[in-house]
């Protein structure tokens, strides 16, 4: 069964929520959030409700497409595409060939009590993301072409095996990473400036792996001093 929802909304409107298809007990919902061309503020909220998208602060039209379907075996898949409208005006500082770009702010809320297999992509925009307190079975995050801040201000509610973060062409400040409580952290990217701060609630066992690969840029890694460093394959 496949249900598709299309909507184009304008500033001053809050996009209405819809009845999603919850996964079976113990089965995660595969959630894909594909966000572009806006400044996205992502927060978690108590409860097991729907993914909220609030564009009431947007001045220009933005587009939201939601798809929810049963994938069999009690697994549900939910996909949300949201894209804003970049406006540009002549810049006084001569950047971007004389143009500066303005992004609308769109707020996304994710319920903490829903078990999620999360794919989050933000491209051609900016983001201020706090995923603290989520219940995750897996998480993959992609941050592209812009300035992005990602934090886990509180621990996730369930340990996970691996978190993957891909990023390119921008500045990436990632904090509270210990609170992801993953056994393996994989960071991949091309050009960019990275700050990775592993503050928060570190998973005590088993031993963890932090792997970073990028082609070009600046990287600062901050690790708690109580952690024992097993080795290094820097090259």
């Amino acid at each position, binding site marked *: 069964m496949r249900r598709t929802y299309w909507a184009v909304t304008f500033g001053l409107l809050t996009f209405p929520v819809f009845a999603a298809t919850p996964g079976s007990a113990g089965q995660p919902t595969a959630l894909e959030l594909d966000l572009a061309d806006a400044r996205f503020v992502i927060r978690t909220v108590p409860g097991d409700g729907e993914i909220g998208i609030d564009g009431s602060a947007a001045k220009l039209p933005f587009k939201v497409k939601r798809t929810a379907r049963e994938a069999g075996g009690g697994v549900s898949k939910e996909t949300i595409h949201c894209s804003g409208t970049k406006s540009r005006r002549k810049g006084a500082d001569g950047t971007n060939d004389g143009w500066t770009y303005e992004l609308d702010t769109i707020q996304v809320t994710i319920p903490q009590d829903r078990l999620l297999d999360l794919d989050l992509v933000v491209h051609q925009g900016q983001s201020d993301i706090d995923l603290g307190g989520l219940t995750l079975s897996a998480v993959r995050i992609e941050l592209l072409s812009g300035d992005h801040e990602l934090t886990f201000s509180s621990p996730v509610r369930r340990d996970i095996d691996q978190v993957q973060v891909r990023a390119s062409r921008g500045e990436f400040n990632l904090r509270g990473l210990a609170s992801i409580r993953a056994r393996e952290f994989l960071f991949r990217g091309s050009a960019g400036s990275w700050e990775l701060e592993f503050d928060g609630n570190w998973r005590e066992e088993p031993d963890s792996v932090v*792997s970073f690969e990028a082609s070009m840029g600046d990287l600062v890694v901050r690790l708690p001093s109580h952690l024992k460093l097993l080795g290094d394959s820097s090259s």
Partner: protein
Amino acid sequence: MGESAKHDVQETMDTQPDSGPAVLLKMRMTMGAASLERF
């Protein structure tokens, strides 16, 4: 990876605790600067 990161890693391995949780750190960057800090 630059000498700065290698120096940081070596220094932190020389002064780290003998027990407790551990992490295997792998950093690879073709071109650029990298550093490791402890807090």
